[in-house]
């Protein structure tokens, strides 16, 4: 499993590499895996691996962080301050103990906007209250910089602290597309091979756009 989302975080884009004991039709395998998982965990697509490591292709993630009841003006100021900083040192308790690391360099893009009631949400995280929505693209690094580290950074640089726990969703992950500044489809190469060189994607949507 490449770069699994942290506990308590919703995701539209998790990737898993498995080996099977015999050749299986990818669509049938997708349906069988999907049937085996609880409601809400959906297998959207299966492709035959082209050989290159999947984990190496997952270079960055796009995240959405909903902050109910947060002040949009304060959020905008904090985001600008964060982006203007060269380094933002944060601390997080990891399995190996308390780690201190830079949360700024890995953040390739960050923007904040206010949302109004009735805004469509991802992963079923419905909310009717006004809120701030952060969207960010974060490069995968060691130690991993997670959206909560970015939130810690916003607090450190501008005292921005959301009043209620954030609702975090990973929207996409994949190789960094320099033209968009976000993740591209990590299955692109495999789809080409699986489909005998066709460039049209198969199956359902994998990942999302920033």
């Amino acid at each position, binding site marked *: 499993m490449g770069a699994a989302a942290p*506990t*308590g*975080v919703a995701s539209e884009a998790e990737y898993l590499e*498995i*080996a*099977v*004991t*015999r050749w299986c039709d990818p669509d049938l395998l997708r349906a069988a895996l999907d*049937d*085996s*998982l*609880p*409601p*809400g*965990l959906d297998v959207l697509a299966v492709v035959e691996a082209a050989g290159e490591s999947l984990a190496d292709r997952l270079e960055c993630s796009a995240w959405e962080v909903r902050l109910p009841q947060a002040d949009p003006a304060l959020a905008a100021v904090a985001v600008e301050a964060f982006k203007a900083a060269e380094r933002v040192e944060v601390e997080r308790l990891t399995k190996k103990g308390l780690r201190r690391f830079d949360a700024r360099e890995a953040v390739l893009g960050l923007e904040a906007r206010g949302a109004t009631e009735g805004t469509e949400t991802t992963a079923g995280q419905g909310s009717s209250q006004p809120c701030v929505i952060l969207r960010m693209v974060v490069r995968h690094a060691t130690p991993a910089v997670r959206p909560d580290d970015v939130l810690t950074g916003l607090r450190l640089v501008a005292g921005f602290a959301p009043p209620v*726990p954030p609702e975090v969703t990973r929207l996409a992950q994949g190789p960094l597309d320099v033209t968009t500044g976000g993740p591209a489809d990590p299955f692109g190469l495999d789809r080409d091979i699986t489909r005998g060189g066709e460039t049209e994607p198969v199956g359902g949507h994998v990942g999302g756009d920033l």
Partner: protein
Amino acid sequence: MPVESLFPRLEALLPKVQKPIQYVGGELNSTVKSWDEATVRWALMYPDAYEVGLPNQGVQILYEILNEMPETLAERTYAVWPDLEALMRAEGVPQFTVDAHRPVRAFDVFGISFSTELGYTNMLTALDLAGIPLEAADRGDDDPIVLAGGHAAFNPEPVADFLDAAVLGDGEQVAIAITEVIREWKAEGSPGGRDELLMRLAESGGVYVPRFYDVEYHPDGRIRRVAPNRSGVPWRVHKHTVMDLDEWPYPKKPLVPLAETVHERFSVEIFRGCTRGCRFCQAGMITRPVRERSITTIGDMVEAGVKASGFNEVGLLSLSSADHSEIGEVAKGLADRYEGTNTSLSLPSTRVDAFNIDLANEFSRNGRRSGLTFAPEGGSERMRKVINKMVTEEDLIRTVSTAYSQGWRQVKLYFMCGLPTEEDADVLGIADLARKVIKAGREATGSRDVRCTVSIGGFVPKPHTPFQWAAQASHEVVDHRLKALKDILRGDKEYGRAIGMRYHDGKPSIVEGLLSRGDRRVGEVIRAVWQDGGRFDGWSEHFSYQRWMDAAAKVGIDVDWYTTREREENEVLPWDHLDAGLDREWLWQDWQDAVNDVEVEDCRWTPCYDCGVCPTMGTEIQIGPTGKKLLPLTVVRDRPCVSTARQKDGHHDLGRTKPL
């Protein structure tokens, strides 16, 4: 009326707790049925954490059988960890099922399976979180019937005040029968309320309703008598025995856990009951007679269960699996079928003979020969005669020599400490035995690369066994003997490094002893412990001996009187009105034989009705051989890529994995 899912409220709490996946439900082969289309609804609980509770066979079997019934639904609930408990209390979220996240209080029956008495405090947490009054007497018509089952239900007296009912023995048929009684009563408009429903259940003699029985005591604290307090209630309640296991091939669709659990395999029960007559073994006594599943049903169940679940390990369960009359054919047939596949086989075997090695060799075809487990249980020949474990030192050394010479490198030996009549020398005999095992292993292999681990558990006298009258050893005695053994092994320069020792201190066994042979007065201790924060008593990191002793002192219970006191023949025992089929005189005679070192034969091979179970219960031993064989299957034999077909932990696990 529809019942709302608690999941939206629960989901908000999950990011804040450990292992939130255990509360999500939706496992492969789990079932969610329409609430409104069901007329009888069961919430089934294993009163421990998901990781221990999910693999429980009893709960899985009942869950499947009840859900197969029309107009009936069953969902599961497990003990929530203290972190979630605190959040649920703060946010007002009640005890929920993991299947549809329905509130437990909305169900008709709240069935709790007690494999061990150490789950009692978790039951109180679940009741309290559910909003169900702790005391059965305080419950109203809107509360579910709180029903206990499992081996601990053979003496439910310590929790009698908290239970509406208890069932003894096999649950398959009686769960269906209870369902029909409830359905009929509800269809009639629930006449007479809760009291009449309990009466309808009790009058058959197959369901124990503690409130319909009064307990009277002698001035010295012993029980004078236990008697029904209303007409129509039988004096004795009998256990249930499923005959012809081939008709009950459950689980057919084993649950596949979402979180890591203690046993991750598909378990097939190859027979129920045991007649070896080990005097310490409650399971062996209360599950008589032996009833085998046929070789063909075993083969069909393995095939269907593996297909339905994807498990890559199959365990053939029973109390003494190598005793199945066709185990050799079963082993060969399954090993042939699954050779070269990802599916591995395991056998929780304790038989000490060469045949067992042959079986182990069959089961290890797909994997490496790591460890074998045997259970001599007693450290000296005399001790083994007392407990009726007929294994001689010669047998053991010959068997382990064979095992080592055939490539096995590790032998695990199970023992108990604190057995009746035991002296220090009996426990120190474990060291002698382990040294001889290593010596034999080195001679057989010509190598020093052999190991032996001795694993020692504290003995707890259990109801419905010949040792039910015995004095339990104090924890000081047990700890003293274990320390002496440890010192000897540690000081042994020649063999000490090749011998590992695993044990627990004696204190938890005293609490287990109090709960095992306690009466209704012990309920106050359980409640006081729970009120003081007692939870998950089966886990060493949560268990507090001092909390139990303080609670007992507070409510005026003398723990020694319940544990280290030997009982007289004619003392009324708290469970005497609960009938496991065993003749009390036979049990007493067997207790006398034990202290006189007299052994008793296994009635599986020598027809014998002395224990009383078959004539009392109208049952018979059911064994093969059938003479049938397993036919080959077409299975995938490609080289495994995902995971190797290695068997876990030497694959001869006794199935005793328990956190404490």
